């Protein structure tokens, strides 16, 4: 029996079991490759460029076209004829197409799409397509790409720099002049990706009679990409119906990268005149879906002798890969409002450059822009401590935004909504027993072990301002384009004639349990149980409420979407109370929803079943207020704090800012250089916690991604643009053996800006953990420079004894060894290309993997499979032609 009380039963804040799980645990999930496509659907396979940079000559498709079962083959020429380039956020003479048109600019770029009766036959047909490539020099390093002599990726642009913007806030020059010292770091953040276990999937159909596309894809938004896709397909927005399946196998930003593939497969369906389905395979995913940006950052601080930072000077060079694909260069601007991190620093200058290289185009990825920024900022804080002989934690403490200063306007325009950074740190230090960890370090070092402690203090932005990306434009350009801002969240709550409650959200969940939390929110408002509330998470742009901000990114669910659900439910509740008031003969304010009943506040026997009340609104509309009979409420909520960038380029890039403080102790193995995380403590303040179990899951999940980025994962490219991380045996995703369990600590300072006081929590560890571990490694080794990922071989180079050539080595042998292996340092990537064409069966039989083929070819290093018949081998020593049945391996 439920007590009669004003307070709702309070599902929020409890770790209720997820409504999603029963289906997922029994194999009854409905992922994109599970749902039955329309009858007659064909399968697509994509031929991809084996080369990082080449002009494309003839594409011979006749043999493939003749293969029984093949229905259509789409090439760049078709795409150019049927569609328009994907629009980008920068005004520059750059064309971004979903397929290579005349020129391939990265390994894996689509060159042709085969549509056939099934995927096996489609892949057979790929083998029969012959493409003639005229190789061009490739440029992989962003610094090299900026040189005037560098090969151009986009000729019309005239350079490989797509954008170069400088910003100044306060008077940094004066502060640098006045400060005791200038301390700087120069860092590179590598390429990586969160690689969801489910790959991309698209089912597309074109109705010629309507000139309309109907696409189902496990796309995660943002729906600001919908107009981009509609324009590319050259249809009005209302003729691109985009739907998402009920379940999606993880995204972490990555499934934003479906955009070009949605366009490509939609065009393939149009060309084939049949529905077409494409399920990306893992090799495609690794080489050519999307990647986080790699970034080269120089960051300098004007510092007082006590470690107080007066000003920052950022120089960020963002490598977006071969195309500037919308919404990039967003990763470079997402953190713009919080470039000062958790610190009270009033003077900042920034130079941001966006550079194109022969790599996969970049896009959203968990932490989006954060890992890159905080790797520089928190390495800098440690460096300041080191150079000034201070404790790194004291340097952090000395610079924090003071407790009581919230909401705090940052130098660059961000508005830090709430927090108690110093308090959070002290709690973490106490509850995480930092003192004990320090003792452990003393002890370990006493035994000659390599033990280090690292720290990171991070502000985690969430709920992006849809206008932050326009900071890349000048104020004049912005004025011409019109203001962009806000962060619409939408939610719909409705009653059916049996009085049951349905909820529709446009947050395209990818595993985060949105349906459960939405049900908790609504259950609390109506006095129901979450299981009574039916929540639909799949989106249909033709029927559902959505806006450009819809989607599953910038950790916006808890703060924005759950809040919109709450507001919609409250609106209906208010109406319903008025209806109930008439029936119960009390004032509307005295109606209480609890225990699945509507009842009088003072007399719980004066009550009616909630379902009867809600149903009655259908059957007797007269019960409702005249003029407001709506049984369905849709809320569009956007926070006023998210204004467009100011004329002075100040921008509140995100609505909410959580706080994270991490510290860890690591040990580096003296023999192997392997890092063992001994202890990891992560303190989070993400505002009000709606579901502790899910918050914990977001933290452990984000931590795992971050640990991967710190220690294992990298999309590696050879200098010639060959891709070296093409399988899950090469791109090392950590397993249960590699991921330790972090100690999670919490405190709650609710956000004043969101309806429920919640903030995002999903991305923070991707920002804090890589640099925290890197700081610990630098501490363990006593070095200034550490590079991610922390490869054992790289770390060991700091302490392995210097090698001497064995006795009796002649000069010639030594040179040969040196040439083959680098000079003892890590020369991991090769210096040339060997191409093996049309190797006969018996040789094929010997080729399993990169390693093996590399070993077969003298002097070969890494090797990459380019296509069924082509390999690219990294060569570190000149090799003569190697013959295989008369077909040369061409150097």
């Amino acid at each position, binding site marked *: 029996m439920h007590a009669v009380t004003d307070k709702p039963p309070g599902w929020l804040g409890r*770790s209720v*079991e*997820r409504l*999603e*799980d*029963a289906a*997922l*645990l*029994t*194999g*009854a*999930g409905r*992922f994109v*490759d*599970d749902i039955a496509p329309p009858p007659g659907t064909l399968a697509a396979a994509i031929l991809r460029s084996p080369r990082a940079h080449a002009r494309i000559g003839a594409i011979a498709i006749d043999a493939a076209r003749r293969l029984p079962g093949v229905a259509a083959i789409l090439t760049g020429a078709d795409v150019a004829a049927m569609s328009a380039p994907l629009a980008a956020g920068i005004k520059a003479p750059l064309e971004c197409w979903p397929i290579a048109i005349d020129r391939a600019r990265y390994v894996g770029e689509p060159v042709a799409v085969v549509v056939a009766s099934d995927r*096996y036959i489609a892949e057979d047909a790929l083998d029969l397509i012959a493409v003639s490539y005229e190789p061009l020099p490739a440029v992989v390093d962003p610094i090299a790409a900026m040189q005037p002599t560098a090969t151009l990726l986009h000729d019309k642009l005239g350079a490989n720099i797509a954008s170069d913007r400088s910003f100044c806030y306060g008077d940094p020059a004066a502060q640098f002049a006045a400060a005791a010292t200038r301390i700087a770091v120069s860092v590179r953040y590598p390429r990586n990706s*969160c*690689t*969801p*276990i*489910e*790959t991309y999937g698209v089912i597309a159909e074109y109705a010629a009679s309507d000139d309309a596309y109907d696409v189902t894809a496990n796309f995660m938004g943002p729906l600001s990409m919908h107009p981009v896709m509609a324009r590319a397909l050259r249809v009005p927005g209302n003729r691109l119906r985009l739907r998402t399946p009920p*379940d*999606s*196998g*993880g995204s*972490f930003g990555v499934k934003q990268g479906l955009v070009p593939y949605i366009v490509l497969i939609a065009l393939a369906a149009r060309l084939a005149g049949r529905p077409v389905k494409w399920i990306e*395979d*893992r090799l495609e995913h690794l080489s050519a879906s999307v990647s986080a940006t790699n970034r080269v950052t120089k960051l300098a601080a004007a510092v007082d002798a006590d470690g107080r930072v007066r000003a920052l000077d950022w120089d960020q060079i963002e490598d977006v890969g071969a195309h500037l694909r919308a919404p990039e260069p967003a990763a470079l601007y997402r953190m713009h409002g919080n470039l000062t991190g958790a610190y009270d620093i009033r003077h900042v200058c920034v130079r941001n450059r966006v550079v194109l290289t022969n790599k996969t185009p970049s896009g959203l990825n968990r932490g989006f822009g954060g890992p890159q920024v905080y790797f520089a900022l928190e390495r800098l804080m440690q460096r300041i401590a080191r150079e000034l002989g201070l404790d790194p934690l004291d340097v952090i403490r000395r610079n924090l935004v003071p407790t009581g200063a919230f909401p705090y306007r940052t130098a660059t325009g961000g508005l830090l909504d709430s927090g108690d950074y110093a308090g959070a740190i002290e709690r973490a230090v106490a509850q995480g027993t930092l003192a004990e960890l320090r003792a452990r370090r003393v002890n370990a070092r006493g035994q000659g072990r390599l033990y280090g402690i690292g720290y990171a203090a991070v502000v985690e932005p969430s709920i992006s301002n849809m206008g932050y990306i326009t900071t890349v434009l000048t104020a004049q350009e912005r004025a011409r384009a019109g203001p962009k801002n806000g962060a619409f969240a939408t939610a719909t709550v409705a009653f059916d004639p049996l009085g049951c409650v349905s909820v529709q959200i446009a947050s395209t969940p*990818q*595993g*985060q*349990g949105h349906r459960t939390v939405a049900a908790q929110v609504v259950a609390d408002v109506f006095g129901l149980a979450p299981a009574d509330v039916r929540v639909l998470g799949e989106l249909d742009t033709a029927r559902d409420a959505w806006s450009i901000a819809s989607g599953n990114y910038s950790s916006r669910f808890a703060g924005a979407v759950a809040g919109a659900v709450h507001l919609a439910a409250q609106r209906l509740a208010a109406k319903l109370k008025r209806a109930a008031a008439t029936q119960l003969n009390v004032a509307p304010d005295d109606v209480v929803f609890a225990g699945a009943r509507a009842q009088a506040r003072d007399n719980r026997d004066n009550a009616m079943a909630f379902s009867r009340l809600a149903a009655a609104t259908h059957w007797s509309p007269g019960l409702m207020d005249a003029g407001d009979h709506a049984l369905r409420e849709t809320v569009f909520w956007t926070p006023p704090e998210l204004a467009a960038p100011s004329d002075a380029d100040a921008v509140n890039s995100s609505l909410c800012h959580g706080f994270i403080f991490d510290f860890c102790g690591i040990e580096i193995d003296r023999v192997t250089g392997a890092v063992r995380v001994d202890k990891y403590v992560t303190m989070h303040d993400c505002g009000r916690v709606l579901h502790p*179990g*899910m918050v*914990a*899951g977001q*933290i*452990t*999940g*984000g*931590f*795992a*991604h971050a640990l991967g980025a710190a220690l294992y994962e990298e999309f590696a490219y050879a200098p010639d643009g060959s891709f070296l991380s093409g*399988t*899950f*045996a090469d791109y090392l*995703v950590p*397993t*249960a*053996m590699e*991921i330790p*369990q972090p100690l999670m600590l919490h405190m709650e300072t609710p956000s004043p800006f969101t309806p429920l006081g919640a903030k995002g929590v999903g991305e923070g560890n991707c920002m804090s953990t890589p640099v925290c571990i890197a700081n610990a490694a630098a501490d363990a080794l006593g070095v200034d420079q550490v590079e991610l990922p922390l490869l054992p071989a790289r770390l060991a180079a700091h302490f392995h004894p210097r090698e001497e050539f064995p006795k009796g080595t002649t000069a010639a042998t030594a040179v040969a060894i040196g040439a083959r292996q680098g000079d003892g340092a890590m020369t991991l990537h090769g210096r040339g290309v060997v191409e093996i064409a049309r190797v006969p069966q018996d040789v094929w039989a010997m080729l399993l993997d990169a390693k093996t083929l590399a070993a077969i070819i003298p002097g070969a290093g890494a090797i990459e499979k380019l296509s069924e018949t082509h390999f690219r081998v990294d060569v570190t020593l000149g090799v003569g032609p190697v013959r295989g049945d008369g077909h040369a391996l061409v150097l």
Partner: protein
Amino acid sequence: MPRLSADRQHSVRFELNGREVEAQAEPRMLLSDFLRHVLAMTGTHVGCEHGVCGACTVEIDGMAARACLTLAVQVEGARVRTVEALAPGPGRLSILQEAFRRHHGLQCGFCTPGILMSLDIFLRAHPAPSEIDIREYLSGHLCRCTGYAPIVAAALDAAEKLREADIIG
């Protein structure tokens, strides 16, 4: 000696989740595709098709097996179990499945069927595993959502509950 020619469909007969089934496959068809697209058993997922992620793990003749590393024609006459067979009945969950739900051992649920199949087999053979046993065993699976901690907790809890059920049962 049976020789199945490359470009023809051949009948494959086996036991799937306790029922005899028969369907057609070319020799090259992977078991993962056969289960999902020919037999419409979409609970078994595909995450890499090269044997690393474990999403496709099923049980073949009592052993864990990657369906993506198995040809459909190889299971002729075999006993195959998939995630669809784990629950004791409609609307019910097994002890292991319940433990996953309780501990939030899944988020997107894409890796989950493979992990459940693996653990189901493992816990039968190892009723009292340590955490490190479970972690080592789970290292044959990739999960990108959970960070593994809740999966390990669910497995340990399930092991305990299964032991209790064994004693009572």
